[in-house]
Protein backbone atom coordinates (compact mmCIF):
# COMPACT_ATOMS: atom_id res chain seq x y z
CA UNK A 1 0.00 0.00 0.00
CA UNK A 2 1.44 3.37 -0.96
CA UNK A 3 0.11 6.81 -0.29
CA UNK A 4 1.83 9.21 -2.64
CA UNK A 5 2.81 12.55 -1.11
CA UNK A 6 3.66 15.21 -3.69
CA UNK A 7 4.09 12.28 -6.11
CA UNK A 8 6.77 10.76 -3.86
CA UNK A 9 5.98 7.26 -2.61
CA UNK A 10 5.94 7.24 1.20
CA UNK A 11 8.21 4.18 1.20
CA UNK A 12 10.98 6.18 -0.48
CA UNK A 13 10.33 9.21 1.69
CA UNK A 14 10.62 7.35 4.98
CA UNK A 15 13.52 5.29 3.66
CA UNK A 16 15.51 8.45 2.93
CA UNK A 17 14.40 9.98 6.20
CA UNK A 18 15.87 7.00 8.03
CA UNK A 19 19.10 7.21 6.03
CA UNK A 20 19.18 10.90 6.89
CA UNK A 21 18.77 10.10 10.59
CA UNK A 22 21.66 7.64 10.37
CA UNK A 23 23.94 10.12 8.65
CA UNK A 24 22.74 12.63 11.22
CA UNK A 25 23.82 10.24 13.99
CA UNK A 26 27.34 10.13 12.49
CA UNK A 27 27.39 13.92 12.09
CA UNK A 28 26.30 14.25 15.71
CA UNK A 29 28.93 11.83 17.08
CA UNK A 30 31.71 13.41 15.03
CA UNK A 31 30.78 17.04 15.66
CA UNK A 32 30.32 16.24 19.35
CA UNK A 33 33.90 14.95 19.47
CA UNK A 34 35.14 17.99 17.57
CA UNK A 35 33.31 20.31 19.96
CA UNK A 36 34.69 18.59 23.08
CA UNK A 37 38.23 18.70 21.67
CA UNK A 38 37.85 22.30 20.55
CA UNK A 39 36.64 23.32 23.99
CA UNK A 40 39.72 22.00 25.79
CA UNK A 41 42.51 22.18 23.21
CA UNK A 42 41.34 25.08 21.07
CA UNK A 43 42.18 23.17 17.92
CA UNK A 44 40.07 21.81 15.10
CA UNK A 45 40.96 18.18 14.80
CA UNK A 46 41.42 17.63 11.08
CA UNK A 47 42.43 14.03 11.76
CA UNK A 48 38.91 13.31 13.02
CA UNK A 49 37.73 11.84 9.71
CA UNK A 50 40.86 9.69 9.43
CA UNK A 51 40.40 8.36 12.96
CA UNK A 52 36.73 7.62 12.22
CA UNK A 53 38.04 5.48 9.35
CA UNK A 54 40.61 3.84 11.64
CA UNK A 55 37.76 2.92 14.01
CA UNK A 56 36.01 1.05 11.21
CA UNK A 57 39.28 -0.67 10.24
CA UNK A 58 39.92 -1.73 13.84
CA UNK A 59 36.52 -3.42 13.80
CA UNK A 60 37.48 -5.14 10.54
CA UNK A 61 40.86 -6.30 11.93
CA UNK A 62 39.36 -7.51 15.20
CA UNK A 63 36.92 -9.67 13.26
CA UNK A 64 39.31 -11.03 10.64
CA UNK A 65 42.52 -11.36 12.67
CA UNK A 66 41.34 -12.00 16.22
CA UNK A 67 37.87 -13.39 15.59
CA UNK A 68 36.33 -10.74 17.84
CA UNK A 69 32.93 -9.66 16.57
CA UNK A 70 30.94 -6.46 16.40
CA UNK A 71 30.17 -6.10 20.11
CA UNK A 72 33.82 -6.42 21.06
CA UNK A 73 34.69 -3.88 18.36
CA UNK A 74 32.17 -1.45 19.78
CA UNK A 75 34.10 -1.47 23.06
CA UNK A 76 37.69 -2.05 21.92
CA UNK A 77 37.90 0.21 18.85
CA UNK A 78 37.14 3.47 20.75
CA UNK A 79 39.63 2.46 23.48
CA UNK A 80 42.41 1.61 21.01
CA UNK A 81 41.86 4.70 18.87
CA UNK A 82 41.47 6.77 22.01
CA UNK A 83 44.90 5.51 23.07
CA UNK A 84 46.33 6.53 19.69
CA UNK A 85 44.79 9.94 20.37
CA UNK A 86 46.48 10.13 23.75
CA UNK A 87 49.84 9.37 22.11
CA UNK A 88 49.23 12.01 19.41
CA UNK A 89 48.31 14.60 22.04
CA UNK A 90 51.27 13.83 24.31
CA UNK A 91 53.92 13.64 21.58
CA UNK A 92 52.76 16.36 19.19
CA UNK A 93 49.76 18.53 20.01
CA UNK A 94 51.09 19.39 23.46
CA UNK A 95 54.09 21.12 21.89
CA UNK A 96 51.80 23.51 20.06
CA UNK A 97 50.12 25.01 23.11
CA UNK A 98 50.66 28.74 23.15
CA UNK A 99 51.07 28.94 19.38
CA UNK A 100 48.49 30.17 16.88
CA UNK A 101 45.55 27.73 16.78
CA UNK A 102 46.04 27.33 13.05
CA UNK A 103 49.14 25.22 13.65
CA UNK A 104 46.98 22.59 15.36
CA UNK A 105 44.80 22.48 12.27
CA UNK A 106 47.83 22.09 10.00
CA UNK A 107 49.40 19.39 12.18
CA UNK A 108 46.24 17.31 12.34
CA UNK A 109 45.75 17.78 8.59
CA UNK A 110 49.22 16.31 8.09
CA UNK A 111 48.34 13.41 10.39
CA UNK A 112 45.16 12.78 8.37
CA UNK A 113 47.24 12.62 5.18
CA UNK A 114 49.67 10.15 6.76
CA UNK A 115 46.96 7.87 8.16
CA UNK A 116 44.82 7.89 5.03
CA UNK A 117 47.83 7.47 2.74
CA UNK A 118 49.07 4.45 4.70
CA UNK A 119 45.69 2.73 4.61
CA UNK A 120 45.33 3.49 0.91
CA UNK A 121 48.69 1.89 0.25
CA UNK A 122 47.65 -1.36 1.83
CA UNK A 123 43.94 -1.49 1.08
CA UNK A 124 43.50 0.55 -2.11
CA UNK A 125 40.40 2.64 -2.44
CA UNK A 126 37.72 -0.02 -2.65
CA UNK A 127 35.50 -1.00 0.24
CA UNK A 128 35.88 -4.03 2.49
CA UNK A 129 32.67 -5.73 3.59
CA UNK A 130 31.69 -5.90 7.27
CA UNK A 131 28.67 -7.95 8.20
CA UNK A 132 25.79 -6.84 10.38
CA UNK A 133 25.91 -8.77 13.70
CA UNK A 134 23.44 -11.67 13.86
CA UNK A 135 21.43 -10.13 16.67
CA UNK A 136 20.60 -7.07 14.56
CA UNK A 137 19.89 -8.74 11.25
CA UNK A 138 16.47 -8.53 9.66
CA UNK A 139 13.90 -5.84 10.23
CA UNK A 140 10.31 -4.91 10.98
CA UNK A 141 7.51 -3.90 8.66
CA UNK A 142 5.95 -0.82 10.19
CA UNK A 143 3.16 -0.64 7.61
CA UNK A 144 4.30 2.61 6.03
CA UNK A 145 7.92 1.47 5.72
CA UNK A 146 10.36 -1.36 6.32
CA UNK A 147 12.72 -0.69 9.24
CA UNK A 148 15.99 -2.65 9.24
CA UNK A 149 16.96 -3.50 12.81
CA UNK A 150 20.57 -2.45 12.42
CA UNK A 151 19.63 1.03 11.27
CA UNK A 152 17.23 1.50 14.16
CA UNK A 153 20.01 0.36 16.50
CA UNK A 154 22.48 2.91 15.10
CA UNK A 155 20.07 5.80 15.64
CA UNK A 156 19.06 4.75 19.16
CA UNK A 157 22.58 3.87 20.31
CA UNK A 158 24.03 7.15 18.97
CA UNK A 159 21.34 9.10 20.78
CA UNK A 160 22.20 7.28 24.01
CA UNK A 161 25.93 8.00 23.60
CA UNK A 162 25.28 11.66 22.79
CA UNK A 163 23.00 12.03 25.79
CA UNK A 164 25.46 10.26 28.08
CA UNK A 165 28.25 12.58 26.92
CA UNK A 166 26.05 15.61 27.50
CA UNK A 167 25.17 14.31 30.97
CA UNK A 168 28.79 13.59 31.86
CA UNK A 169 29.93 17.06 30.86
CA UNK A 170 27.02 19.14 32.08
CA UNK A 171 25.88 17.25 35.21
CA UNK A 172 28.79 15.43 36.85
CA UNK A 173 31.65 16.68 39.02
CA UNK A 174 34.28 15.59 36.47
CA UNK A 175 32.33 17.48 33.83
CA UNK A 176 32.35 20.60 35.96
CA UNK A 177 36.15 20.41 36.22
CA UNK A 178 36.25 20.06 32.48
CA UNK A 179 34.02 23.06 31.88
CA UNK A 180 35.98 25.11 34.38
CA UNK A 181 39.26 24.16 32.70
CA UNK A 182 37.80 25.22 29.36
CA UNK A 183 37.00 28.65 30.79
CA UNK A 184 40.19 29.22 32.77
CA UNK A 185 42.83 26.47 32.77
CA UNK A 186 45.35 28.42 34.89
CA UNK A 187 42.93 28.93 37.73
CA UNK A 188 41.78 25.30 37.69
CA UNK A 189 45.41 24.19 37.82
CA UNK A 190 45.94 26.40 40.83
CA UNK A 191 43.25 24.34 42.60
CA UNK A 192 45.47 21.30 42.22
CA UNK A 193 43.68 19.68 39.29
CA UNK A 194 45.89 18.05 36.69
CA UNK A 195 44.74 20.05 33.65
CA UNK A 196 47.32 18.71 31.14
CA UNK A 197 46.13 15.19 31.94
CA UNK A 198 42.54 16.29 31.45
CA UNK A 199 43.43 17.81 28.09
CA UNK A 200 45.11 14.58 26.99
CA UNK A 201 42.17 12.45 28.08
CA UNK A 202 39.72 14.84 26.42
CA UNK A 203 41.49 14.42 23.11
CA UNK A 204 41.50 10.65 23.60
CA UNK A 205 37.80 10.70 24.41
CA UNK A 206 36.95 12.89 21.40
CA UNK A 207 38.72 10.67 18.90
CA UNK A 208 37.29 7.62 20.69
CA UNK A 209 33.84 8.95 19.79
CA UNK A 210 34.99 9.23 16.17
CA UNK A 211 36.16 5.60 16.26
CA UNK A 212 32.82 4.55 17.74
CA UNK A 213 31.04 6.24 14.83
CA UNK A 214 33.41 4.38 12.50
CA UNK A 215 32.45 0.99 13.99
CA UNK A 216 28.76 1.86 13.74
CA UNK A 217 29.12 2.82 10.11
CA UNK A 218 31.22 -0.21 9.08
CA UNK A 219 28.24 -2.52 8.31
CA UNK A 220 26.37 0.26 6.48
CA UNK A 221 29.01 2.09 4.45
CA UNK A 222 31.70 -0.61 4.08
CA UNK A 223 35.24 -0.05 5.36
CA UNK A 224 37.19 2.28 3.03
CA UNK A 225 40.46 4.22 3.58
CA UNK A 226 38.85 7.45 2.37
CA UNK A 227 35.49 6.99 4.11
CA UNK A 228 36.26 9.90 6.45
CA UNK A 229 38.13 12.21 4.08
CA UNK A 230 35.17 13.95 2.46
CA UNK A 231 32.77 13.14 5.27
CA UNK A 232 34.73 15.33 7.66
CA UNK A 233 34.24 18.37 5.42
CA UNK A 234 30.48 18.03 5.79
CA UNK A 235 30.97 17.63 9.54
CA UNK A 236 32.99 20.88 9.55
CA UNK A 237 30.05 22.60 7.85
CA UNK A 238 27.76 21.10 10.51
CA UNK A 239 30.05 22.49 13.19
CA UNK A 240 30.00 25.94 11.59
CA UNK A 241 26.19 25.81 11.43
CA UNK A 242 25.77 24.68 15.04
CA UNK A 243 28.64 26.58 16.60
CA UNK A 244 31.00 24.66 18.83
CA UNK A 245 29.91 26.35 22.03
CA UNK A 246 27.30 23.84 23.14
CA UNK A 247 27.23 20.04 23.43
CA UNK A 248 23.49 19.73 22.89
CA UNK A 249 23.78 22.19 20.02
CA UNK A 250 26.14 19.99 18.05
CA UNK A 251 23.98 16.90 18.63
CA UNK A 252 20.76 18.63 17.54
CA UNK A 253 22.43 20.25 14.52
CA UNK A 254 23.97 16.93 13.48
CA UNK A 255 20.67 15.05 13.46
CA UNK A 256 18.79 17.98 11.92
CA UNK A 257 21.17 18.32 8.99
CA UNK A 258 21.21 14.57 8.40
CA UNK A 259 17.42 14.64 8.09
CA UNK A 260 17.44 17.70 5.82
CA UNK A 261 20.03 16.01 3.61
CA UNK A 262 17.86 12.87 3.47
CA UNK A 263 14.80 14.88 2.47
CA UNK A 264 16.79 16.69 -0.22
CA UNK A 265 17.61 13.29 -1.71
CA UNK A 266 13.88 12.71 -2.15
CA UNK A 267 12.75 16.10 -3.40
CA UNK A 268 15.78 17.49 -5.23
CA UNK A 269 18.51 14.85 -5.54
CA UNK A 270 20.85 17.10 -7.56
CA UNK A 271 21.40 19.27 -4.50
CA UNK A 272 21.83 16.49 -1.93
CA UNK A 273 25.64 16.82 -1.99
CA UNK A 274 25.60 20.55 -1.46
CA UNK A 275 22.54 21.24 0.71
CA UNK A 276 24.54 21.29 3.97
CA UNK A 277 26.97 23.85 2.49
CA UNK A 278 24.09 26.00 1.24
CA UNK A 279 22.53 25.94 4.71
CA UNK A 280 25.91 26.90 6.14
CA UNK A 281 26.03 29.92 3.84
CA UNK A 282 22.51 30.98 4.86
CA UNK A 283 23.27 30.58 8.57
CA UNK A 284 26.46 32.65 8.15
CA UNK A 285 24.37 35.43 6.62
CA UNK A 286 21.66 35.38 9.27
CA UNK A 287 23.41 34.28 12.46
CA UNK A 288 27.19 34.25 11.91
CA UNK A 289 27.95 32.76 15.33
CA UNK A 290 26.02 29.61 14.44
CA UNK A 291 22.64 28.38 15.67
CA UNK A 292 23.89 27.52 19.17
CA UNK A 293 27.13 29.49 19.15
CA UNK A 294 28.23 32.19 21.51
CA UNK A 295 29.64 35.29 19.86
CA UNK A 296 33.30 35.56 20.69
Amino acid at each position, binding site marked *: MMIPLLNIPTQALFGQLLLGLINGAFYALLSLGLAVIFGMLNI*VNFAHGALYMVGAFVAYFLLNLAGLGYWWALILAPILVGFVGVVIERTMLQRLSGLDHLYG*LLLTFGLALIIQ*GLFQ*NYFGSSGLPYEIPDMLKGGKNLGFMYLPNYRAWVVVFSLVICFATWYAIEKTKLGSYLRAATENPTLVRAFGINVPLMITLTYGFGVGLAALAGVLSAPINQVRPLMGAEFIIVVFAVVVIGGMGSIMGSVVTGFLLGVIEGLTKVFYPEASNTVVFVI*MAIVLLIKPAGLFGRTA
Partner: protein
Amino acid sequence: MTAQAIHPTSAALDASKRRDEMVAFVIMAVLFAAAPLAVYPFFMMQALCFALFACAFNLLIGYVGLLSFGHAMFLGLAGYVSAHMAKLGTIAFGPINLNFGPVDPVIAILIGVASSAILGVVTGALAIRRQGIYFAMITLALSQMIYFFCLQAPFTHGEDGIQGVPQGKAFGFIDLSHQMTMYYFVLAIFLGAFLFIHRIINSPFGDVLKSIRENEPRAISLGYKADHYKLAAFVLSGALVGLAGATKSLVAQNASLTDVHFSMSGEVVLMTLVGGLGTIYGPVVGAIIIVAMQNYLAGFGQWVTVIQGVIFVACVLAFRRGIVGEIAHRFGKSL
Protein backbone atom coordinates in the same frame (compact mmCIF):
# COMPACT_ATOMS: atom_id res chain seq x y z
CA MET B 1 55.96 64.63 13.17
CA THR B 2 57.07 62.36 10.37
CA ALA B 3 58.71 59.00 10.79
CA GLN B 4 61.91 60.40 9.31
CA ALA B 5 62.28 62.95 12.07
CA ILE B 6 62.20 60.17 14.69
CA HIS B 7 64.37 57.71 12.78
CA PRO B 8 66.77 59.68 10.63
CA THR B 9 68.22 56.49 9.17
CA SER B 10 64.94 54.97 8.00
CA ALA B 11 65.27 56.51 4.54
CA ALA B 12 68.70 54.94 4.16
CA LEU B 13 67.37 51.63 5.50
CA ASP B 14 64.49 51.77 3.03
CA ALA B 15 66.87 52.38 0.17
CA SER B 16 69.08 49.44 1.14
CA LYS B 17 66.04 47.19 1.60
CA ARG B 18 64.73 48.21 -1.81
CA ARG B 19 68.13 47.49 -3.37
CA ASP B 20 68.23 44.02 -1.76
CA GLU B 21 64.74 43.28 -3.02
CA MET B 22 65.68 44.43 -6.52
CA VAL B 23 68.74 42.17 -6.52
CA ALA B 24 66.73 39.18 -5.29
CA PHE B 25 64.05 39.74 -7.92
CA VAL B 26 66.57 40.04 -10.76
CA ILE B 27 68.31 36.85 -9.61
CA MET B 28 64.99 34.99 -9.59
CA ALA B 29 64.00 36.34 -13.03
CA VAL B 30 67.35 35.38 -14.56
CA LEU B 31 67.24 31.90 -13.01
CA PHE B 32 63.74 31.26 -14.36
CA ALA B 33 64.60 32.70 -17.78
CA ALA B 34 67.58 30.34 -18.03
CA ALA B 35 65.82 27.34 -16.44
CA PRO B 36 64.62 25.71 -19.72
CA LEU B 37 68.31 25.12 -20.57
CA ALA B 38 68.53 22.68 -17.67
CA VAL B 39 64.97 21.55 -16.85
CA TYR B 40 62.04 20.41 -18.97
CA PRO B 41 60.13 23.56 -19.97
CA PHE B 42 56.79 21.82 -19.35
CA PHE B 43 57.79 20.99 -15.80
CA MET B 44 58.99 24.55 -15.23
CA MET B 45 55.73 26.00 -16.57
CA GLN B 46 53.75 23.88 -14.15
CA ALA B 47 56.08 24.89 -11.34
CA LEU B 48 55.59 28.58 -12.23
CA CYS B 49 51.80 28.20 -12.17
CA PHE B 50 51.95 26.54 -8.75
CA ALA B 51 54.43 29.17 -7.55
CA LEU B 52 51.93 31.89 -8.48
CA PHE B 53 49.18 29.84 -6.80
CA ALA B 54 51.23 29.70 -3.59
CA CYS B 55 52.25 33.38 -3.71
CA ALA B 56 48.60 34.41 -4.05
CA PHE B 57 47.62 32.09 -1.21
CA ASN B 58 50.44 33.50 0.91
CA LEU B 59 49.09 37.02 0.38
CA LEU B 60 46.19 35.94 2.58
CA ILE B 61 47.80 33.70 5.22
CA GLY B 62 51.13 35.50 5.40
CA TYR B 63 49.99 39.11 5.40
CA VAL B 64 46.41 39.08 6.68
CA GLY B 65 46.68 35.97 8.84
CA LEU B 66 43.69 34.30 7.18
CA LEU B 67 44.10 30.57 6.55
CA SER B 68 41.96 29.61 3.59
CA PHE B 69 41.53 25.87 3.18
CA GLY B 70 39.55 26.26 -0.02
CA HIS B 71 41.81 28.01 -2.49
CA ALA B 72 41.54 25.11 -4.95
CA MET B 73 38.10 26.47 -5.88
CA PHE B 74 39.70 29.54 -7.51
CA LEU B 75 42.36 27.49 -9.27
CA GLY B 76 39.87 24.96 -10.58
CA LEU B 77 37.03 27.28 -11.55
CA ALA B 78 39.26 29.71 -13.46
CA GLY B 79 40.90 26.73 -15.16
CA TYR B 80 37.54 25.38 -16.31
CA VAL B 81 36.23 28.76 -17.42
CA SER B 82 39.29 29.76 -19.43
CA ALA B 83 39.65 26.26 -20.92
CA HIS B 84 36.00 26.41 -21.99
CA MET B 85 36.37 29.89 -23.47
CA ALA B 86 39.56 28.99 -25.33
CA LYS B 87 38.02 25.82 -26.73
CA LEU B 88 34.36 26.66 -27.41
CA GLY B 89 33.71 30.23 -26.29
CA THR B 90 30.01 29.79 -25.59
CA ILE B 91 28.15 31.35 -22.68
CA ALA B 92 24.74 29.84 -21.89
CA PHE B 93 23.24 31.07 -18.65
CA GLY B 94 19.47 31.20 -18.29
CA PRO B 95 18.09 33.31 -21.13
CA ILE B 96 21.57 34.49 -22.15
CA ASN B 97 22.97 32.46 -25.00
CA LEU B 98 26.14 33.79 -26.59
CA ASN B 99 28.65 32.21 -28.90
CA PHE B 100 32.01 33.92 -29.38
CA GLY B 101 33.76 30.93 -30.84
CA PRO B 102 37.20 30.05 -29.46
CA VAL B 103 38.56 33.29 -27.99
CA ASP B 104 42.10 34.68 -27.83
CA PRO B 105 44.06 32.91 -25.05
CA VAL B 106 44.66 36.23 -23.30
CA ILE B 107 40.93 36.96 -23.27
CA ALA B 108 40.25 33.41 -22.06
CA ILE B 109 42.67 33.92 -19.17
CA LEU B 110 41.11 37.27 -18.29
CA ILE B 111 37.61 35.76 -18.25
CA GLY B 112 38.94 32.98 -16.00
CA VAL B 113 40.42 35.58 -13.64
CA ALA B 114 37.13 37.49 -13.62
CA SER B 115 35.23 34.32 -12.72
CA SER B 116 37.45 33.61 -9.73
CA ALA B 117 37.28 37.26 -8.65
CA ILE B 118 33.47 37.05 -8.61
CA LEU B 119 33.68 33.76 -6.72
CA GLY B 120 36.05 35.53 -4.32
CA VAL B 121 33.53 38.29 -3.61
CA VAL B 122 30.76 35.81 -2.81
CA THR B 123 32.78 33.30 -0.77
CA GLY B 124 34.89 35.99 0.88
CA ALA B 125 31.82 37.90 2.06
CA LEU B 126 30.59 34.71 3.75
CA ALA B 127 33.90 33.51 5.15
CA ILE B 128 35.03 36.76 6.78
CA ARG B 129 31.95 36.67 8.98
CA ARG B 130 33.88 34.26 11.23
CA GLN B 131 37.46 34.34 12.48
CA GLY B 132 40.37 31.99 12.87
CA ILE B 133 39.64 28.30 12.71
CA TYR B 134 36.07 28.86 11.56
CA PHE B 135 37.36 30.84 8.58
CA ALA B 136 39.39 27.80 7.51
CA MET B 137 36.43 25.45 7.90
CA ILE B 138 34.06 27.76 6.01
CA THR B 139 36.41 28.18 3.05
CA LEU B 140 36.91 24.41 2.98
CA ALA B 141 33.16 23.76 2.97
CA LEU B 142 32.50 26.37 0.28
CA SER B 143 35.21 24.94 -1.93
CA GLN B 144 33.68 21.50 -1.53
CA MET B 145 30.42 23.01 -2.78
CA ILE B 146 32.25 24.38 -5.84
CA TYR B 147 33.76 20.93 -6.34
CA PHE B 148 30.31 19.37 -6.55
CA PHE B 149 29.22 22.19 -8.85
CA CYS B 150 32.13 21.39 -11.18
CA LEU B 151 31.30 17.70 -10.97
CA GLN B 152 27.70 18.28 -12.02
CA ALA B 153 27.77 21.35 -14.31
CA PRO B 154 27.50 20.34 -17.99
CA PHE B 155 30.28 22.58 -19.32
CA THR B 156 32.99 20.98 -17.16
CA HIS B 157 32.25 17.45 -18.47
CA GLY B 158 32.34 15.84 -15.01
CA GLU B 159 34.97 13.17 -14.55
CA ASP B 160 36.40 13.70 -18.07
CA GLY B 161 37.19 17.39 -17.62
CA ILE B 162 37.86 19.65 -20.58
CA GLN B 163 40.46 18.05 -22.81
CA GLY B 164 42.42 19.26 -25.84
CA VAL B 165 42.31 22.96 -25.04
CA PRO B 166 43.87 24.87 -27.98
CA GLN B 167 46.75 27.15 -26.96
CA GLY B 168 46.13 29.56 -29.82
CA LYS B 169 47.83 32.85 -30.54
CA ALA B 170 48.09 35.43 -27.75
CA PHE B 171 46.95 38.89 -28.97
CA GLY B 172 46.41 37.19 -32.31
CA PHE B 173 50.08 36.85 -33.21
CA ILE B 174 52.15 35.23 -30.42
CA ASP B 175 51.99 31.52 -31.24
CA LEU B 176 51.65 29.72 -27.89
CA SER B 177 51.67 26.24 -29.37
CA HIS B 178 55.43 26.76 -29.69
CA GLN B 179 56.74 25.51 -26.34
CA MET B 180 59.45 28.11 -25.69
CA THR B 181 57.10 30.94 -26.63
CA MET B 182 54.59 29.51 -24.17
CA TYR B 183 57.31 29.29 -21.56
CA TYR B 184 58.20 32.97 -21.74
CA PHE B 185 54.52 33.88 -21.92
CA VAL B 186 53.95 32.00 -18.63
CA LEU B 187 57.12 33.49 -17.13
CA ALA B 188 55.94 37.01 -18.04
CA ILE B 189 52.59 36.36 -16.35
CA PHE B 190 54.31 34.96 -13.27
CA LEU B 191 56.81 37.82 -12.92
CA GLY B 192 54.10 40.42 -13.53
CA ALA B 193 51.82 38.89 -10.88
CA PHE B 194 54.75 38.49 -8.48
CA LEU B 195 55.60 42.20 -8.77
CA PHE B 196 51.93 43.04 -8.32
CA ILE B 197 51.76 41.00 -5.09
CA HIS B 198 55.00 42.59 -3.92
CA ARG B 199 53.51 46.01 -4.60
CA ILE B 200 50.34 45.15 -2.64
CA ILE B 201 52.35 43.97 0.36
CA ASN B 202 54.48 47.14 0.43
CA SER B 203 51.64 49.59 -0.16
CA PRO B 204 49.76 51.49 2.57
CA PHE B 205 46.93 49.02 1.89
CA GLY B 206 49.34 46.18 2.68
CA ASP B 207 50.35 47.89 5.91
CA VAL B 208 46.72 47.94 7.03
CA LEU B 209 46.44 44.23 6.16
CA LYS B 210 49.49 43.49 8.31
CA SER B 211 48.04 45.50 11.17
CA ILE B 212 44.87 43.40 10.96
CA ARG B 213 47.03 40.27 11.10
CA GLU B 214 48.81 41.53 14.20
CA ASN B 215 45.80 42.87 16.10
CA GLU B 216 42.42 43.09 14.46
CA PRO B 217 40.47 44.79 17.29
CA ARG B 218 43.13 47.47 17.49
CA ALA B 219 43.04 48.08 13.74
CA ILE B 220 39.28 48.46 13.99
CA SER B 221 39.59 50.83 16.93
CA LEU B 222 41.94 52.97 14.83
CA GLY B 223 39.09 53.41 12.37
CA TYR B 224 39.99 50.84 9.73
CA LYS B 225 37.06 48.84 8.42
CA ALA B 226 38.82 45.49 8.87
CA ASP B 227 36.12 43.54 7.04
CA HIS B 228 36.49 45.65 3.90
CA TYR B 229 40.24 45.16 3.89
CA LYS B 230 39.93 41.43 4.50
CA LEU B 231 37.41 41.05 1.70
CA ALA B 232 39.57 43.07 -0.69
CA ALA B 233 42.58 40.90 0.15
CA PHE B 234 40.51 37.74 -0.26
CA VAL B 235 39.25 38.83 -3.70
CA LEU B 236 42.74 39.85 -4.83
CA SER B 237 44.13 36.54 -3.64
CA GLY B 238 41.34 34.59 -5.33
CA ALA B 239 41.73 36.48 -8.62
CA LEU B 240 45.50 35.89 -8.64
CA VAL B 241 44.96 32.19 -7.94
CA GLY B 242 42.51 32.30 -10.85
CA LEU B 243 45.29 33.71 -13.02
CA ALA B 244 47.44 30.73 -12.04
CA GLY B 245 44.61 28.28 -12.74
CA ALA B 246 43.72 29.80 -16.11
CA THR B 247 47.34 29.83 -17.24
CA LYS B 248 47.80 26.27 -16.00
CA SER B 249 44.83 25.04 -18.05
CA LEU B 250 46.41 26.53 -21.20
CA VAL B 251 49.81 25.01 -20.39
CA ALA B 252 48.44 21.53 -19.67
CA GLN B 253 45.74 21.93 -22.34
CA ASN B 254 43.13 20.54 -19.98
CA ALA B 255 41.05 21.39 -16.93
CA SER B 256 40.05 18.64 -14.54
CA LEU B 257 38.57 17.92 -11.13
CA THR B 258 42.06 17.51 -9.62
CA ASP B 259 42.52 21.28 -9.58
CA VAL B 260 39.28 21.94 -7.71
CA HIS B 261 39.59 19.05 -5.23
CA PHE B 262 40.25 19.92 -1.59
CA SER B 263 43.55 18.04 -1.57
CA MET B 264 44.80 20.78 -3.91
CA SER B 265 43.88 23.32 -1.23
CA GLY B 266 45.98 21.30 1.18
CA GLU B 267 48.88 21.20 -1.25
CA VAL B 268 49.11 24.96 -1.56
CA VAL B 269 49.16 25.23 2.24
CA LEU B 270 52.02 22.76 2.27
CA MET B 271 53.98 24.63 -0.43
CA THR B 272 53.69 27.89 1.46
CA LEU B 273 54.50 26.28 4.80
CA VAL B 274 57.61 24.56 3.45
CA GLY B 275 58.87 27.75 1.79
CA GLY B 276 57.95 30.02 4.68
CA LEU B 277 54.65 31.65 5.63
CA GLY B 278 54.72 35.41 5.20
CA THR B 279 57.93 35.50 3.18
CA ILE B 280 57.90 36.85 -0.36
CA TYR B 281 60.07 34.16 -1.97
CA GLY B 282 59.06 31.27 0.31
CA PRO B 283 55.97 30.19 -1.67
CA VAL B 284 58.03 30.13 -4.89
CA VAL B 285 60.68 27.87 -3.34
CA GLY B 286 58.06 25.71 -1.63
CA ALA B 287 56.04 25.27 -4.82
CA ILE B 288 59.07 24.18 -6.82
CA ILE B 289 60.08 21.67 -4.13
CA ILE B 290 56.62 20.13 -3.82
CA VAL B 291 56.03 19.98 -7.60
CA ALA B 292 59.46 18.41 -8.10
CA MET B 293 58.78 15.91 -5.32
CA GLN B 294 55.47 14.88 -6.87
CA ASN B 295 57.16 14.57 -10.24
CA TYR B 296 59.94 12.29 -9.02
CA LEU B 297 57.79 10.24 -6.65
CA ALA B 298 54.90 9.85 -9.09
CA GLY B 299 55.52 6.10 -9.32
CA PHE B 300 55.16 5.52 -5.59
CA GLY B 301 51.38 5.84 -5.44
CA GLN B 302 49.94 6.92 -2.14
CA TRP B 303 53.35 7.17 -0.49
CA VAL B 304 53.42 10.70 -1.90
CA THR B 305 50.44 11.53 0.34
CA VAL B 306 52.18 9.96 3.32
CA ILE B 307 55.37 11.93 2.65
CA GLN B 308 53.39 15.14 2.29
CA GLY B 309 51.76 14.41 5.63
CA VAL B 310 55.14 13.81 7.26
CA ILE B 311 56.46 17.11 5.85
CA PHE B 312 53.39 18.87 7.21
CA VAL B 313 53.91 17.44 10.70
CA ALA B 314 57.66 18.08 10.64
CA CYS B 315 57.21 21.69 9.48
CA VAL B 316 54.61 22.46 12.13
CA LEU B 317 56.58 20.83 14.95
CA ALA B 318 60.13 21.86 14.16
CA PHE B 319 60.41 24.11 11.14
CA ARG B 320 57.69 26.73 11.38
CA ARG B 321 59.68 29.47 9.62
CA GLY B 322 60.08 27.38 6.45
CA ILE B 323 63.14 27.35 4.21
CA VAL B 324 63.19 30.98 3.11
CA GLY B 325 61.98 32.14 6.52
CA GLU B 326 64.88 30.33 8.15
CA ILE B 327 67.42 31.81 5.73
CA ALA B 328 65.96 35.28 6.18
CA HIS B 329 66.12 34.85 9.95
CA ARG B 330 69.80 33.81 9.81
CA PHE B 331 70.78 36.81 7.73
CA GLY B 332 68.41 39.23 9.40
CA LYS B 333 66.80 40.21 6.10
CA SER B 334 63.22 40.03 4.91
CA LEU B 335 62.99 37.92 1.79
